[in-house]
């Protein structure tokens, strides 16, 4: 029961966005995906979620190739994601934002609303239920987006820069939420972040992309000790090796 990219390549015309990328996420595991801008991180998420067809290689879910499936089928099969900009439906209230997903997954309206309420409560944001999604504070918007992704009980959750623009305290709160999702729900998380410190503190396994290729993979110590990573991030702030 693993979600994996197997030797995946993606080309846009002549531009190779990904080359032979292999990575795997197991249930309850947090895997980090880092790399400089344009390294291909979001493309990985798009391939994993069916929004981008790989040019070569396979996407595997529990050993089955799902590379050709439409996005909503992959979502139904249990792979959910959040987006960089939150992308809530601003014309709907918070509960309907979640209920909409439940309904899309085949729940009845009433069931979807029940599940949505329960999830919001689990994340400690039950008070937001009837608020319009437009104009939510930044951190609340992120939490609602995560709650929405958890509708239907996915087995995997891909988080695309969930901490972007957050302060250290806010990012720490978010880290606690992600840890709970992995531990209490057994959901395998793929965490894409620019905040390398956050990724290293959460992830048991980190994959580093640069120019569409995997340049390093391993635990915190491996990443911090890697010369290749240091070069890719030259000029960026990489935490000092402990």
């Amino acid at each position: 029961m693993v979600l994996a990219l197997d030797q995946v390549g993606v080309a846009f015309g002549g531009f190779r966005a990904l080359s032979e990328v292999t990575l795997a996420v197991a249930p309850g595991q947090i895997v980090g995906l880092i790399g400089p801008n344009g390294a291909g991180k979001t493309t990985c998420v798009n391939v994993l979620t069916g929004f981008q067809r790989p040019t070569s290689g396979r996407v595997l879910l529990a050993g089955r190739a799902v590379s050709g499936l439409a996005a909503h089928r992959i979502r139904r099969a249990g792979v959910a994601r959040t987006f960089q900009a939150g992308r809530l439906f601003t014309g709907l209230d918070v509960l309907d934002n979640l209920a909409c997903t439940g309904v899309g997954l085949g729940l009845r309206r009433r069931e979807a609303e029940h599940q949505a309420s329960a999830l919001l409560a689990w994340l400690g944001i039950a008070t937001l239920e009837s608020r319009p999604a437009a104009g939510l504070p930044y951190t609340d918007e992120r939490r609602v987006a995560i709650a929405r992704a958890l509708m239907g009980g996915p087995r995997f959750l891909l988080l695309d820069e969930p901490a972007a623009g957050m302060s250290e305290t806010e990012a720490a709160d978010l880290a606690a939420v992600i840890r709970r999702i992995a531990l209490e729900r057994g959901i395998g998380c793929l965490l894409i972040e620019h905040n390398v410190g956050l990724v290293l503190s959460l992830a048991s396994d980190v994959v580093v992309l640069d120019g569409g290729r995997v340049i390093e993979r391993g635990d915190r110590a491996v990443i911090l000790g890697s010369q290749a990573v240091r070069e890719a991030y030259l000029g960026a702030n990489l935490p000092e090796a402990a």
Partner: protein
Amino acid sequence: MSLQLLFDALALGGIHAIAALGIALIFGVMRLVNFAHGQFIACAVFALILPSADALAVLGLGRLPAPVLVPVILSVGAGLALAAEALVFRPMRNASPVTLMVGSFALGVALQNLLLVLYGGRPKAISLWAGLGHPVRIGSAEVPLLQLIVIAAIIVILVGLALLLRRSRIGLEMRAAAEDFGMARMLGVPANRVISGAFALSGSLAAVVALVLVAQTGIADVRMGGQIMLVAFIATVVGGMGSLSGAVVAGLGIGAVSALLQAGLPPEARPFRDAFLYAAVILVLLFRPQGLFAPVGTRTRV
């Protein structure tokens, strides 16, 4: 304002609102300005009569009693729209909005010519529900029964549609898809179901407009969808492309202003009624180019 004028304004505005809704529904879910909507209306009109080139129309389906006829014609409209979606717009699903629009023009021309082949080009007299013309006295006004029925039907349709969009599963999916289609798909909302649903609804609304037009004017004309399509399109633009409530409000507004101008302008200025109306539209768009109720979803996305 006289009561009579109020009823005129409501009936005319209501029809424009229903036509505008038909366009806004489809624009909402797939950013397609469906210029064939007018021909959907015309096809629903001609579905009432038997094909022939004679000037006097012979009712075919139109002979059915109203409780059967209305659902049948609504299904014809819905079926036509569904077929258009499956045969024309589905293969163009990922095309640009401009390509889609050109495609809808082509479909419109094809449908119009199909009608010309089957029915000839001359307008036909058609007598549907002739009994509904007799006036009813309400206070100081004498209102044709048909007008009351039209107003009641429009209220029922608008309330029903609002409930459908608010309460039902497909309604929630449509509202989400109208705002951010890619996102809705990603979240598990199947694209085909939502788009087919929108087309079916839009087609039935076109059929409603067709029935009202025929009952009011007693004429079946191959070109009859064009004029109302134009006004309805203007209403969707003024209302804010993709905003359903905006389309309804603007449709009602344009119809009402049109009726008021007709009654209020000095007789020598009346032929220029539409010029006044469109000048008002231009003024609105100068101050709110995004329309009165631009939906949040049309803002730039990341």
